[in-house]
């Protein structure tokens, strides 16, 4: 009869041990002086590496852009572009020559001084043959870079480019002599890299010799989670102070009812698209695309995935782009008209197509919704679930698809419709011309007018079905303030965050 007692005793010892451990629970480190505080950021986007021209992914932009690395210009959280490492700049009357004067006394984290040679090599890293930057094509317009003195950079363009300064805000200025940029850094930002513990966290420490205004906190740790529940639990238990971009709408309720947390509904640039292959039957037919667009209740879809969050735009253009207009009324949800249009286009009994669906949220759920909506107008959808890299090969590279679902994260990306070779194959000479002219505008008003006109045509043609614009939700503890709300292009400036 000793054994059951032994087992019970063992169990008791175990429980006592747990309780003993609990009693030495230490709360999160809260500095009395907020300038010495450590800010814990939670995110699902761990960088793949630390090089934004080497496939670092959106995680590296989130953690390092503006914090560790700076550009000649900065894209603010509200979407404005202002000089940063560029003290001033001028443009020649023909719009082809940009002369940039650098800030004085800027040092890299390694101690080296910023010179025009670093700027030249940094731009060339983005445009290099092996660069994996998604911004590479937008800088292809550069014809030459001169460095007349250590503080001046002169960039010559092949054609006028009104977005040039904006595009430069994506170019990190890196020490020309730096190596191993996938695992180390040498930028000019207010923080230097602490340690990157892969699979877990990445820390930033305030750089004492920073040329500008010092960061308002001492350390920032980006904590990475693969499981959304684990991420939410971390915030609930104060292990982190802020979630950069909540991807779990169901979990928001637990924060909404809690006075210790605040849910910020910011502006996002991420759109969910039902992209048609505009070069292939039946989607080469404008009427068919319009019918499909009108047969799907986007509002219901958005609501089923995001509840009360997110917006409908009716186009590729998010409200933060200067050429935004609400185009939801162009192809309103109306299955009767949709059926009529299908009949007129020669498909009175509908048709069948395959929908290539990336295997991660929210695509599979959206695909099921679209399938049931289109069934009501006689269209049969076969859902083909594929992995992200199958998507790249099959859809993006080989254009071997009828229709697909995909999220597009960048701002100002309506210009992709001006490229007939892009994966969706939308080919409208007038749109291509307008987009090209817009880029060569003299003023932003001109550019805005041209792109607005182009977007109107793209939407009238139902080039794709822009299902909805994601919400950008930052959930934070009420003990911190000063964090960015919009996360444009996944950036997340941390230097103004203050902990009380």
């Amino acid at each position, binding site marked *: 009869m000793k054994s059951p007692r032994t087992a019970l005793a063992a169990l008791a010892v175990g429980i006592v041990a747990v309780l003993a451990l609990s009693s030495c*629970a230490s709360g999160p480190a809260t500095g009395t002086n907020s300038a010495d505080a450590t800010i814990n950021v939670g995110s699902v986007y761990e960088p793949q590496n630390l090089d934004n021209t080497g496939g670092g992914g959106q995680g590296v932009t989130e953690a390092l852009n503006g914090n560790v690395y700076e550009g000649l210009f900065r894209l603010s959280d509200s979407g404005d572009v202002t000089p940063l490492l560029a003290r001033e700049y001028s443009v020649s009357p023909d719009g082809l020559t940009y002369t940039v004067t650098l800030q004085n006394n800027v040092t890299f984290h390694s101690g080296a001084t910023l010179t025009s040679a670093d700027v030249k090599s940094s731009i060339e890293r983005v445009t290099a043959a092996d660069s994996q930057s998604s911004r590479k094509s937008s800088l292809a317009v550069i014809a030459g870079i001169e460095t007349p003195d250590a503080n001046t950079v002169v960039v010559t363009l092949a054609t006028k480019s009104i977005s040039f300064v904006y595009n430069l805000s994506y170019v990190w200025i890196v020490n020309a002599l730096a190596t191993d940029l996938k695992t180390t850094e040498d930028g000019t930002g207010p923080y230097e890299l602490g340690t990157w513990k892969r699979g877990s966290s990445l820390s930033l420490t305030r750089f004492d010799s920073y040329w500008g205004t010092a960061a308002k906190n001492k350390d920032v740790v980006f904590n990475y989670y693969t499981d959304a529940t684990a991420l939410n639990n971390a915030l609930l238990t104060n292990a982190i102070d802020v979630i950069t971009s909540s991807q779990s709408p169901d979990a928001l309720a637990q924060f909404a009812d809690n006075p210790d947390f605040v849910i910020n509904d910011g502006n996002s640039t991420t759109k969910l698209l039902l992209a048609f292959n505009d070069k292939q039957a039946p989607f080469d037919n404008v009427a068919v695309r319009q019918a499909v667009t009108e047969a799907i209740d986007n509002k219901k879809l958005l609501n089923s995935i995001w509840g009360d969050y997110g917006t409908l735009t009716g186009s590729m253009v998010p409200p933060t782009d200067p050429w935004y207009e609400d185009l939801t009324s162009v192809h309103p949800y109306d299955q009767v008209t949709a059926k009529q249009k299908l009949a007129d286009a020669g498909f009175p009994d509908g048709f069948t197509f395959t929908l290539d669906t990336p295997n991660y949220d929210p695509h599979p759920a959206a695909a099921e919704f679209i399938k049931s909506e289109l069934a009501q107008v006689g269209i049969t959808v076969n859902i083909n679930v594929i992995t992200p890299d199958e998507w790249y090969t099959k859809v993006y590279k080989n254009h071997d698809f009828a229709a697909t679902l995909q999220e597009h994260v960048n701002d100002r990306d309506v210009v992709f419709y001006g490229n007939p070779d892009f994966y969706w194959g939308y080919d409208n000479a007038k749109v291509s011309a307008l987009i090209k002219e817009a880029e060569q505008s003299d003023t932003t008003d001109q550019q805005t007018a041209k792109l607005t006109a182009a977007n109107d045509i793209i939407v009238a043609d139902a080039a794709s079905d822009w299902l909805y614009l994601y919400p950008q939700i930052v959930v934070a503890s009420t003990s911190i303030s000063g964090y960015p709300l919009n996360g444009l292009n996944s950036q997340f400036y941390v230097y103004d965050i203050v902990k009380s």
Partner: protein
Amino acid sequence: MAVYLLRRLVFLLVSLLLASAVLFALLRLLPGDPANALLSVGATAEQIEAARQSIGSDLPLGQQFVAWLGHIFTLDLGTSFISGVPVGPDIASRLVVTIPLTLISFVLAVLIAVPVGYVAARRSHRWYGMTLSGVSQFGLAVPIFWIGILLISFFALTLRALPAGGFPRQDWADPLDAIRSLTLPVITITIVMTASITRYVRSATLDVLGSDYLRTARSLGASFRQAMWHHGLRNASVPVVAILGIELATTFLGAVVVESVFALPGLGNMLLTGIAQHDYPVIQGVLLVSTFLVLIVGFIADVVQRLIDPRLRGNMTGQRAAVVR
């Protein structure tokens, strides 16, 4: 025994080589090219080609395999396609989490399951014997992540007594902190493991209790305790040791679920990310190291079994004698 050990070691190496070939072949059967994972929307055909060249996925398969084998022999598991970081040290930093997690759970589970299983068998007709048996059955049926979620919700979210997840940035520099982080994950695994091991201990004990030799020993005047101590335990432990080896290996490989629930930067987490990114060096490295550890566990279990059971040693010489004859 020395010959046996040597032979077993050779077998270990051959298994490892075979496993590496199978791993390599299976991974290449996956659709898609790893280069694609490196690029974002907007990539040109030239960019994709450049990426393929940079990671060597444009080379013939044979060439890729030979290069990889060469690296293994020099204990170099390669460099991640994606992060540009050497895979070996990265794996080592993950093992700092996964090995303690697995081993502590295992030791706790054995310490609890052996007495509990024994009692469940010895008193199989009493109410507490039946209860223990029933509870262990229940423990087997409950999904491990659910146990983890329950523990988090109670100890972390309600009581705020333990962390809901994560692991200290300084690893084991502050051992108490590390142990606090591992407490709930360890309990989670221990519960499931205990349930399973209890079942085996119980059935092994039941076999022994009904055996002829135990009855014979008692008829020769040994007390139950003496008979059990001298004959029963040893016999019962042979199948249990075999099972323990398998349990340990399964737990090591299955830790991925618990690591995900508790946001632990372990080996499973590394494997999942590697698979999602088609990062072949990472996937191969993690699977190779896991295979190696599992084979080692099997090796130890085999050796322990031979030490416990003289019949296994006898069999071997007997077979050889028969061949000679």
